[in-house]
């Protein structure tokens, strides 16, 4: 699992989406992050980490490559990226046929 900066994460995520256009899926996971850097210790060991309330973990994978980043500010770039790449779905228009030439029903 590669931990990246927010910008590198966006770049790599773009690459993942491009790679998976012909086959495969892109899985993105979002979870609140409390700032732990070590695993939860066994009983008796003190937990010393900085509790953080304003971060979340963003992970992405294409089944083989995994990337992740910690987000502490809302990034508009990320939302735009998602919207831009998830464009292969059917449009509601009944008249025109689906633009996907490769996929067959």
């Amino acid at each position: 699992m590669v931990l990246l900066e927010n910008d590198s994460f966006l770049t790599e995520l773009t690459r993942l989406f491009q790679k998976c256009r012909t086959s495969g899926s892109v899985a993105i996971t979002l979870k609140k992050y409390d700032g732990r850097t070590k695993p939860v210790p066994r009983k008796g060991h003190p937990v010393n980490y900085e509790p953080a309330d304003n971060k979340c973990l963003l992970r992405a994978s294409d089944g083989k490559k995994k990337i992740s980043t910690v987000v502490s500010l809302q990034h508009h770039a990320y939302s735009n990226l998602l919207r831009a790449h998830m464009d292969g779905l059917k449009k509601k228009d009944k008249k025109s046929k689906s633009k996907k030439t490769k996929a067959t029903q």
Partner: protein
Amino acid sequence: MPYYQTWEEFARAAEQLYLTAPVKVRVVLKYRHCDGNLRIKVTDDAVCLQYKTDQAQDVKKIEKLHGKLMRLMVSKESGAMETD
């Protein structure tokens, strides 16, 4: 595992689930361009809510909900003040 039939129900349930257990809840998006579909799952490992779609109009809704949940996670619990 139940797939919701309407987006409104799913969005409402997902937001509610997050507000009851913010630390446990995770959101998973799975996009397949070759098949032309998108799935979203919101779970706290006890309750699992899922929605799938192949419609372009749903992408915007899903992405908005995703962004909304991200904003909730990134803002301080007590107030809605932006950090930095």
